[in-house]
């Protein structure tokens, strides 16, 4: 079985179109991020209290809200989880003043208001505001450090221009994935950060496979102009790029559908990231290498 045989698609010729496409996506992402005043951070990063409860009998979001608003949590964010018949909710409030335990207060109120409808406490998370900002910083450092590590490794194994192209492509992927989260108003949690880093690693994987072929072809196809040599390399590796992305997408989609609440945002970030990452290794990373090469050639003259 082969889907891709003797391919010869002119990827590089259409790179201007790809630039436009990428630029549009990045612009949309940035606009959305600006409009939403930055990413929507989850409780891990903002601090606060979240209570996950599962009721035995049918109950509405409104009922739950009425109950918790009696103790001053009228602005609580209440989200239904899973199917309607699961009667499961996440109630999230901002951190209260020190000493008072928001989760306990809510539990007591729910018990009082729904004596006929017992509930199971599924999870409680309370995070202080300092620890939140600390984690935010750690997350940013994590992304930066991995980028630096990659820059160094690729510079060593390939050339500096390849390293820069790879890292630019990574920024491209992360910004657009972040944009998707912003547009859909999904929260950035620790797990999503983990997904971002995985996307970084994954997208890089694709990029390196292409670069590796370019490095190889630089010796084999010396007569070929640089741009068309890159295009040949992309075509040669295209089949692998797509097959691997496909198998990874399979498991990510399974996780997205069946993994449940904990892994949903992770799987969603991966889903977007894999598609964008595969695209960027073809249409962003390699063209940047070409542009860089062109400039260097011009300078030489």
């Amino acid at each position, binding site marked *: 079985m082969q889907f891709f045989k003797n391919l010869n698609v002119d990827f590089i010729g259409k790179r201007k179109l790809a630039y436009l496409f990428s630029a549009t996506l990045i612009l949309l992402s940035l606009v959305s991020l600006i409009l939403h005043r930055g990413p929507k951070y989850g409780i891990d990063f903002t601090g606060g209290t979240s209570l996950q409860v599962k009721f035995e009998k049918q109950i509405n979001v409104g009922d739950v809200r009425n109950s918790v608003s009696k103790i001053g949590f009228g602005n609580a964010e209440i989200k239904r989880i899973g199917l309607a018949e699961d009667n499961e909710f996440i109630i999230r409030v901002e951190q209260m003043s020190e000493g008072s335990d928001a989760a306990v207060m809510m539990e007591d109120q729910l018990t009082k208001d729904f004596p006929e409808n017992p509930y199971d406490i599924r999870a409680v998370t309370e995070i202080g505001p*300092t620890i939140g900002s600390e984690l935010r910083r750690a997350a940013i450092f994590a992304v930066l450090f991995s980028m630096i590590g990659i820059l160094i490794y690729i510079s060593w194994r390939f050339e500096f221009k390849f390293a820069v192209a790879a890292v630019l492509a990574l920024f491209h992927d992360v910004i657009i994935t972040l944009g998707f989260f912003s547009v859909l108003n999904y929260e950035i949690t620790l797990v999503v950060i983990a997904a971002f880093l995985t996307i970084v690693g994954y997208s890089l994987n694709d990029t390196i496979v292409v670069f590796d072929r370019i490095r190889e072809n630089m010796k084999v196809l010396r007569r070929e102009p640089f741009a068309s040599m890159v295009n040949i390399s992309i075509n040669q590796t295209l089949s692998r790029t797509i097959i691997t992305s496909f198998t990874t997408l399979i498991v990510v989609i399974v996780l997205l559908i069946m993994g449940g609440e904990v892994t949903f945002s992770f799987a969603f970030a991966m889903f977007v990231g894999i598609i964008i990452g595969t695209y960027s290794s073809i249409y962003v990373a390699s063209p940047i290498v070409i542009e860089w090469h062109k400039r260097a050639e011009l300078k030489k003259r």
Partner: protein
Amino acid sequence: MQKEHVFRLVLILALVVLSVVSLFPTLQLGGLQKTETAMVDEIKTLTGLTRAEIESGLTSGNLESLVRRTISGDTLEKALELSDKLIKHNSKITRVEGKSIRQGLDLQGGTYLVYEVDLPQLLRDKAKNKDSRLEDIITATIKQSEEGIDFFTSLQENFTSRQIGLNRYFGSKGQTDEKIIEELQNEATDAIDRTLENIRNRIDQFGVSEPSIQKEGNRRIVVQLAGIQNIQRAKAVIGKTALLEFKLVKDADIVISVINDIDRVMRKMRMGEDIITDQQPGTDATQDTTLGEKAEDKQVSLSELFGDQADTTVEADTTGGVVVDQKTFSEKPFSSLLRQLSGRSEIFVPLKNEQVVQRILQIPEVVDVLPGDAEFLWGRETTTLGEEQFLELHLVKQEPELLGSMLTDAQVQIGGGGDQSMRAGAAEVHMELNNEGSKKFAVFTGMNVGKFLAIVLDNKVATAPRIKEKIPSGSARIEVGNMDEAKDLALVLRAGALPAPIHAITENTVGPSLGRDSIDKGKNSAIIGLALVVLFMIFYYRGSGVIADFALFLNIIFVLAFMAGFHATLTMPGIAGIILTVGMAVDANVLIFERIREELRTGKTIRAAIDSGYSQAFRTILDANVTTLITAVVLYSFGTGPIKGFALTLSIGIIASMFTAIVVTRLIFDMITARFAIKKLSI
């Protein structure tokens, strides 16, 4: 088979065997747990206890007494037999669990708590004088430390930039800023150590199987409690401030007379004579046993000990009996549970008898015979005498002579031999009292020379040294056997002296039901994801796909075996990591297969195509995986618990996939092409 194949084959087989051995306990665990559930169900139907009650009885070790309390008659015997079996089965599970993949708190349910020393509060407590300027500096320091600058570095800078010496508020006049900062830092570390000690002492009472209490950085403590039932109570107890008291120990003659009184009370109870008739509950005929039969046995049943009106709530240990001195048992039922009484004020209780003695001490009639101002307190640590372990029991005056708040410091000192009162190398603890404490202590020690003073932390006696002389200065020395004991005692004293300002800054609790759901969802996703990938590989690469799938299976086994072998923690993100590995692990094989196809297209022979396919793809696979590994390692070092779990499984998955894809599949190809004359490669 070629020689070179044999070597690789042996290597791979050895790894597989190793993996299976390392995975065996984990595989065994599921079955064991099922049996346990069945046993719990059986007890449930027999006794009417809830599952939660049975499980908590199991972890706290009082399942048997729980069963005794609930039912009686014929079913009791059956239920007891069953619970005995369950207890044994449970300890087997614990053993096997130690060699299995550990489930993270998010999978098995549990609580993750982070405590932080309130450094600003510590500064305010320590400051010689408090004014708005100090408050300004503290506020500025808090702000900067939230931006990631070290608290003390920032504190020092804030003082310097305002041209104020730290000695204005802290330390003594002559000290440099650096010296004072160093001392404050030590103070903070000490606060952490003291709190760690307190938490450790208190956590015992929850019956948590593997509590983890760790220092993190220089101002945090991370507490992880798996499978805990009542989180609110746990939090309340852990967060409580330590209570340190100094209590006068009752004289030996009083202790002896109290024990005699208790013996009398017990004897009467055993004979069925009610001491205070109107308080006695009805007698239970089924519990009646005659003394003659059992006295020959060293193990005495509890009902016998308590006589006719035996209350079955006695917390028996698992063997169901206690150790008594047979000779004195009938005469002095209480004394017979104790050891070494002559002339000493402390009582030694064999560890086995602890709960029975505790139970006796709570009987109202026994409480009545105690002198009005006295109480019994247990020691903190067990002592080993001969081959047996003992707990000390002290009879002390209820009213404390001194409180921890009157203590300013406690330090370990080692005797240099110069001091006449101290052996060279012996350790002692110096403690300093404040003004109020010094005065009280001077009067108290003056009046009680020769007596013993119990140092009590959270109602447990740490030690009870003899008062040698009047201590007028507020500076006391406590002689201790060795260095470790001295360190412990100093920590106990400091723990109670200055309650460390500490707050819980993070709590993350996952209920057991959510954990079970997560496991189910994770398992299902993994199985379906794996099945789809496996089918796709066979569909796309045919025979070679089968080989790649085989490598994929091996890969997963290696990852799990590694987790089990190192008793690593599997979290929900960790499961996601394994699932992701399934999708990504085939990548190496895809690269190789695509390369082989290319080589075949150029007209190479099968052997040559395989050779060059592997060698060409190797470099690409290495580069691509190293970069992914870089991000995984970064993630591991920056992430918290669950995320670390993800980084771990992903890293192991990547490494294992390189091995299986490059070494294992290559060997299979080599062996097939060497054995059969293949004309067309199924790829």
